[in-house]
């Protein structure tokens, strides 16, 4: 069936418009960050940063404890993602591959758990952490971020585990592997792309969280980057160059991670399609 000329043009035209719409805010953030203030506060916007400056980035990085906060954010985010992946993998395997009593109830439990509105339970969590004498520490943060992402990680991984052909596992077991060995040698490698894709959700959740750290960690050197960004914004509300530089720095790791892992996940999908 041949498409008419219009029929061929409109999808592409729409795609271009959509592309611009989705990319522009991200572009504008980076562009503003690199423009000298004179080019930001103008009556007519300067669309492309012609004379690039790093002055805003310097200002952003100059904040007290900036590198400590980076380290804290990375520590908390990576640990909670890794811990939740490990816990979730066990659970997902059981839910996807085994028959047992209460399975249905558990799935619904995790679905309910992922609905928890954490922001509104903040005082309760604060009192628990306070009474356990764990304030101003990265441990409660890690632990609660792990829990925030755990339910969805389980539910998603369950899908990935189920997608691995059962026959592979069985043939491995026929070859004399125990179930655990079969899991480690056969299923796990096939799951790797799925794990990476799933981890993105955890990364972005933990990286972004801020109401909890705001109330739990008052000591500056125990805080994380979202607090820095929001305080930066309050202090430099009108200094859009510095604010956008801070936003860019904050967003960059996630953007990179995303593009990198997303690719892996897609190739994982095609692999899976071929093998499945």
């Amino acid at each position, binding site marked *: 069936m041949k498409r008419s000329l219009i029929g061929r043009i409109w999808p592409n035209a729409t795609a271009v418009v959509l592309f611009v719409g989705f990319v522009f805010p991200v572009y504008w953030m980076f562009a503003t960050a690199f423009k000298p203030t004179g080019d930001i506060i103008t009556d007519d916007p300067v669309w492309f940063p012609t004379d690039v400056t790093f002055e805003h980035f310097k200002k952003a990085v100059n904040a007290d404890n900036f590198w400590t906060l980076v380290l804290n954010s990375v520590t908390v985010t990576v640990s909670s993602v890794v811990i939740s992946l490990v816990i979730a993998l066990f659970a997902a395997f059981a839910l996807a591959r085994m028959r047992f009593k209460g399975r249905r109830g558990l799935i619904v439990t995790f679905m309910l758990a992922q609905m928890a509105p954490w922001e509104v339970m903040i005082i309760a969590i604060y009192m628990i952490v306070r009474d356990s004498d764990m304030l101003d520490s990265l441990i409660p943060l890690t632990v609660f971020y*792990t829990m925030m992402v755990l339910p969805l990680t389980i539910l998603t991984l369950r899908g*990935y585990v189920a997608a691995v052909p059962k026959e592979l596992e069985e043939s491995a077991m026929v070859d004399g592997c125990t179930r655990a060995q079969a899991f480690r040698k056969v299923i796990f490698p096939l799951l790797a792309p799925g794990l990476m894709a799933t981890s993105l959700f955890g990364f972005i959740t933990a990286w972004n969280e801020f109401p909890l750290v705001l109330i739990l960690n008052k000591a500056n050197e125990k805080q994380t980057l979202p607090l820095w960004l929001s305080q930066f914004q309050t202090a430099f509300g009108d200094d859009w160059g510095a604010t956008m530089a801070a936003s860019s720095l904050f967003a960059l790791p996630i953007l990179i991670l995303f593009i990198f892992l997303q690719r892996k996940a897609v190739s994982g999908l095609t692999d899976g399609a071929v093998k499945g």
Partner: protein
Amino acid sequence: MSVQTEGTDTAGKPAVRKARVPAPPRGADGASRASSRRGAGVPYLLLLPALLATVILLGWPLVKNGMLSFQNLNPRQLIQHLTEWNGFANYREVLTEAEFWHVVERSVFFTAANVVLIMGAGTLIGLLLARLGKKMRLTLLVGLVLAWAMPVVAATTVYQWLFAQRFGVVNWVLDKLGWHSMADHNWLETQFSTFAVVTLLIVWMSVPFVAINLYAATTTIPRELYEAASLDGAGAWKSFTSVTLPFLRPFLYSTTFLEVIWVFKSFTQIFAMNEGGPDHLTETLPIYAYVQGVGNQHFGVGAAISFLTILALLIITSYYLRMVLKQEEDEL
């Protein structure tokens, strides 16, 4: 809220999996049955860490929150570690307040509007992706992924800048397009336009998830189904409604469920944009709970509102949860 990733692997999604295998011979599997009989405790053991985490880290705060909702808890009690039970007083205070019901109503409309927009736009863009040539598709995918990956705190800040009253690029464009009254427009001045900006932000960052996953799902539709449909004489529209849509339905259900939860829970987007203002008019339930509880330091009342928020979320999603319960029964 943000991003999420069950990824491009749609084959992994429970819903899709079910659709792909119309009559799955699942459970008719001797080997797994035998092995599970041998180690009946194994699944529980595997689930133990997840369960423990859920009980301790979610269950405990929930119970604590529930207990606080029956207490008179203000700065004095918090500071002196006093426990003053006051029965249902907090609930009575919240439920008899007209404000609360306005907030509930607002939250429902806000969620509905956003989810409809997200699912509508996401589905259309997903179908568009399937129609595009390879290069164009990749370009659009990159754009979507960038928006998807923007951390919400940064994204909210960027939108404030885009819509800034002074020197904001949106006002400039509207002015140049001939809408001169918008030159110095303050977007956060009224309820409607604040919601408009928040909605645009939420839709912008949520659509990519729906679109990309939906596109990936369409690629797993077996070609033979279309061939069979066209043999039956089905046109483009007919084959869409008879093949594509039924195939995607479970996926659409589960995605809608997730979006409802995420939109309903959205906190940072609204709070960081304008703190629920102007005049509390953009407070949805989570914001209301936060402002009353933490902002006004009326912690007991805040706990009661958060309990009611959870209840509201349960009611809204109960239809889907029931469906899941039924569906899981059929599986394995």
